[in-house]
């Protein structure tokens, strides 16, 4: 295919005079794949005064004309409830996120390393687990775990009940596991194979090579995407309110019921939830993006 137009220079303008991929014009939009850290990057790019803006919107929300219950009354109600929904609700969200992240990270490390196992069956099973839990809706996973696990187990005569929030933690840790597995696999594979060869030629075993040579090199590279997933997980914790776990959103709803469900309550209460999640995740996102820049690969 040959073109003799005005702009026939490949990569500069017009249609390229070649099918060779290296000579095709640079396509910025397709040059990079989907960004694995888009969440943190977006969050970190917001200005620090964003919470003030949210608070401002909450405060000046147009007052619906109801003589009996004003918007000011609603803000007063929120003020009374803030200590309770924060200490009993939001801190519980944080606890759930910590536990789900811890479990998800441990399992994810195992599954991720399983994907580079020398045993074919281990590779297949871990690949399947990763794809299954990465690509399933979180809410569906949560409900499956909720309904599949018994509410109590009988171990040698002692009955141990499994509260709903434990199941919620397990349910949330599954997609985290799968995504951490991908981070681990990707990081290990980002180390040049020459490092494996150099290590092998020094008579290191495969296990020693992995733990002493390869993983120490890519450990830092895993931290920013790992934190990105922590922020995503934290913001997903309100999902567990659908399982009846008494976290921030559940308690906020109960508080609003306690205040007779005035519609004026919606914006202050949910606005507060938005604010507090932002206040928690924003510093994490800034740190994530900063660390990513600091750990940028230099080979």
């Amino acid at each position, binding site marked *: 295919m040959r073109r003799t137009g005005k702009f026939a220079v490949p990569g500069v303008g017009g249609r390229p005079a070649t099918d060779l991929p290296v000579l095709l014009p640079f396509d910025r939009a397709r040059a990079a794949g989907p960004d694995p850290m888009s969440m943190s990057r977006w969050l970190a790019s917001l200005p620090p005064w964003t919470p003030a803006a949210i608070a401002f919107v909450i405060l000046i929300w147009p007052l619906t004309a109801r003589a009996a219950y004003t918007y000011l009354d609603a803000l007063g109600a929120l003020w009374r409830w803030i200590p309770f929904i924060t200490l009993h609700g939001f801190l519980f969200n944080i606890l759930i996120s910590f536990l789900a992240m811890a479990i998800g990270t441990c399992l994810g490390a195992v599954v991720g390393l399983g994907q580079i196992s020398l045993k074919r069956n281990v590779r297949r099973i871990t690949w399947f687990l990763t794809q299954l839990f990465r690509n399933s809706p979180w809410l569906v996973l949560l409900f499956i775990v909720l309904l599949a696990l018994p509410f109590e187990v009988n171990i040698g005569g002692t009955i141990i009940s499994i509260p709903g929030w434990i199941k919620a933690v397990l349910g949330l840790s599954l997609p985290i596991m799968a995504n951490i597995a991908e981070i681990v696999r990707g990081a290990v594979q980002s180390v040049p194979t020459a490092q494996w060869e150099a290590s092998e*030629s020094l*008579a*290191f075993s495969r296990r020693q090579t992995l733990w002493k040579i390869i993983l120490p090199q890519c450990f830092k590279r895993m931290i920013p995407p790992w934190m990105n997933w922590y922020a995503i997980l934290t913001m997903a914790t309100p999902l567990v309110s659908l399982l009846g776990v008494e976290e921030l959103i559940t308690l906020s709803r109960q508080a609003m019921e306690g205040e007779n469900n005035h519609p004026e309550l919606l914006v202050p209460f949910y606005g507060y939830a938005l604010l507090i999640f932002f206040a928690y995740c924003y510093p994490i996102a800034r740190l994530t993006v900063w660390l990513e820049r600091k750990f940028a690969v230099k080979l």
Partner: protein
Amino acid sequence: MPETGWTPDQPMISVKDVHKSFGTLEVLKGISLDVMKGECVCIIGPSGSGKSTFIRCINALNDIQSGSIKVEGQEVNDPNLNKLELRKKVGMVFQQYNLFPHKTAIQNIMMAPILVLKQDPAEVEEQARQLIRKVRLGGKEDSYPGELSGGQQQRVAIARSLAMRPDVMLFDEVTAALDPETVKEVLVTIRELAEEGMTCILVTHEMGFAREVANHIYFTDLGVIVEHGPPSTFFTEAKDPRTKEFLSQIL
């Protein structure tokens, strides 16, 4: 390591009719050569002639399809080969140095003796400091590879390999990635090793070096050894037209 009945008067490395393919592409088409203990052998030839592939077969980084490679009597082309035991005896230095970037120079040297040979760390450190001085890098012990020049990195890589006290050293185009000034410092190190009696196999493009240091030179092209001989006659009395053409381009 099983008893092989090898004695130092037999070839330390004995290669017979080695064939190696990548998919349908046959890279080695019957390579045979012997290397005695203490010998320094250079393999030269045009790019793509299978030199690097061959040298990587000796420490089982590449497997071979047929033929036999014996290192001190131990068959490398054996499915039950204990690769770790083989690699303790065969050191290798690469074109791209391949130092571990997260470890300092001295840590690079100390890792394998401590972790693989389970030697006493204090003794290993003493030995590593000697090796660093031997490759003329005294004072660079605590530098990271990223802080060293190519030639310095390559000498650390040589010291790292020597720390395992191998019986034979393989050098895979170790100066090909270096700039001309630093090539010399690496070659000096290798020459000293050869003069001390280390068995060396070098894949190289440094003809002057091969002429000076090698006991025997092999010329490969298209997966076979076209011609070989001691340097005294190899460069002057080449018979094969391919060798002549190659030498005329290089020299």
